[in-house]
């Protein structure tokens, strides 16, 4: 009961907050974008214990689905987001065939190759369709007049984040989640107990792909522009960093990590090299002293939390 009240208060505060200041809404969208990407990657990387170095690829696919559909067929935003989800799911299914045969460092380079293929396709491969480095500009979304652009997207992102978090929570506490945990601990043992390892890993990859696609699709509409720049290697690395800073495999950790990792560069725009050093410092501290992430540090003081 007490937890529910706390949750309700946090949710209410998050909904009211953007109305106080436009700046909060602006930074909120970026932070939630990062948090959704971190939550999505956490399912495949944290729960399943695999490696995903290509999380930004799915976000890019989502972004470009929305962008291309608007550019060529003038599809309304709601419909194109739905299409983006379908495309994300299809692509996740296709790439699951090569990727799920790989493990360990081979999977690391396999998922990274997936990212580079996606990035190279849009930035240098088929520039006539995708506009190359310049990208595609999109129309402003009509908020119905009573919400500003930033606040509207803040609320949309918040709802999507809550949805992803709920899915993450549901997966974690279900049969599937336990199966994933077993696989991450010892794959051979899981397989010898009769578990369909490939099936559970596929679910992990699919959820990862769909959530990240959704985040990318909404993000580009907010930016009113699709560019490969949004989904660069840096974004990719930031997703991984946010997982480790926040606490990989935990429920809330990736959100905290995503918020920190994606907001920090925004506040340090004037000192571009420093945020890398701050990240590195944060990461070193978490790896050495708090393997469960920032959140894990707090549970040192609160012994009840496991």
């Amino acid at each position: 009961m007490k937890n529910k009240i706390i949750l309700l208060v946090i949710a209410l505060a998050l909904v009211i907050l953007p109305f106080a200041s436009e700046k909060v809404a602006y930074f909120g969208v970026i932070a939630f974008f990062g948090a959704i990407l971190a939550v999505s990657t956490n399912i495949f990387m944290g729960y399943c214990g695999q490696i995903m170095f290509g999380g930004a690829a799915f976000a890019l696919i989502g972004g470009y689905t929305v962008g291309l559909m608007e550019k060529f067929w003038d599809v309304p935003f709601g419909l194109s987001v739905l299409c983006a989800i379908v495309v994300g799911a299809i692509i996740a299914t296709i790439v699951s065939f090569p990727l799920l045969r790989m493990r360990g460092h081979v999977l690391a380079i396999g998922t990274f190759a997936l990212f580079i293929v996606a990035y190279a396709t849009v930035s240098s491969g088929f520039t006539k369709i995708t506009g190359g480095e310049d990208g595609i500009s999109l129309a402003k979304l009509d908020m119905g007049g009573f919400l500003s652009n930033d606040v509207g997207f803040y609320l949309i992102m918040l709802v999507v984040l809550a949805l992803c978090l709920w899915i993450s929570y549901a997966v974690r506490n279900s049969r599937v989640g336990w199966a994933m945990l077993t696989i991450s601990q010892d794959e051979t043992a899981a397989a010898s107990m009769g578990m369909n390892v490939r099936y559970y890993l596929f679910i992990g990859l699919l959820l990862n792909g769909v959530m990240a696609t959704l985040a990318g699709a909404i993000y580009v509409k907010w930016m009113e522009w699709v560019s490969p720049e949004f989904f660069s290697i840096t974004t990719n690395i930031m997703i991984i960093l946010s997982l480790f800073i926040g606490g990989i495999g935990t429920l809330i950790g990736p959100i905290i990590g995503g918020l920190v990792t994606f907001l920090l560069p925004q506040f340090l725009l004037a000192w571009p090299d420093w945020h890398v050093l701050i990240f590195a410092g944060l990461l070193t501290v978490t790896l050495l002293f708090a393997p469960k992430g920032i959140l894990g540090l707090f549970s040192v003081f609160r012994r009840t939390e496991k």
Partner: protein
Amino acid sequence: MEYFLTVLVSGIGIGCMYGFVGLSFASIFNCSKVVNFALGDLAMLGAYGSSLLVFSGIVPVPIGLIGAIALPVIAGLMINYGFVEPLLKRNRPMIMIVIGTMTAGMIIAAIISKITAYRVFPTRLIFGSSPITWEMLRISPQYLAIIIAAIVISVLYYLFLKKTKMGLGVTVAGLDADMASLIGVKLGTARLISWIIAGIMCGIVGFLLGPVALPSGKMGTDILLYGFIAAVVGGFGNPVGAIIGGLILGCLISFSAAYISGGMVQLIVFTLLLIILAVKPTGLLKE
């Protein structure tokens, strides 16, 4: 035919370079099962060392080579004692150690970018810029140097692993750590040696690469990526495989750039990589 051969030779040159980086991956991986993601930035240090010392005319080439090797070795030892050993001691999962080395690489790249302030330093080709012509083959001396260095270093590395007591110790430490410490191999020392070897290799790669590719704080990512691919394609931890993987990769890059188009290189290389890894997830040669 002429064009084909020229492309082939430059492909082999690039390939030897990436194979080299793959070899230094193998050196550390075979000793402690750590995949070192800071290698690209170590090679970048070597490139800066060579470009700062030799090409700005401060010191003669041999001393510059020593400097270019010393920088990555020192940085490698700092990473080993600052990141890897403490993480190993705390029994962190391997992925965290990998992320730890990546962090170290990020720090190196950031510091270098900060110090040099994104300036581009003048470079000079050590062996002259006029190509060596032989029959109808034209080879850039820089690539020739890279190929020769790759052959020499591979042979030396092989001899070190198989013929010296120290090299055998390093090999055994990688095969079975408990067993190795039982028969008197000091694991910490073995890891230290593997890091020094990797540092030397990165220094040589950087020294030779410096004049071809202009050194920048960001060049480490590319070196790391392609070196890692070479190592994985050949079979991770297999020194011969790393060189073969590097050669395949180098020729792929060189031929797709020459015959298809420069913009499609990454797309082709990485699509093929996905296919190769899907067919043979353990790499072409066994791990």
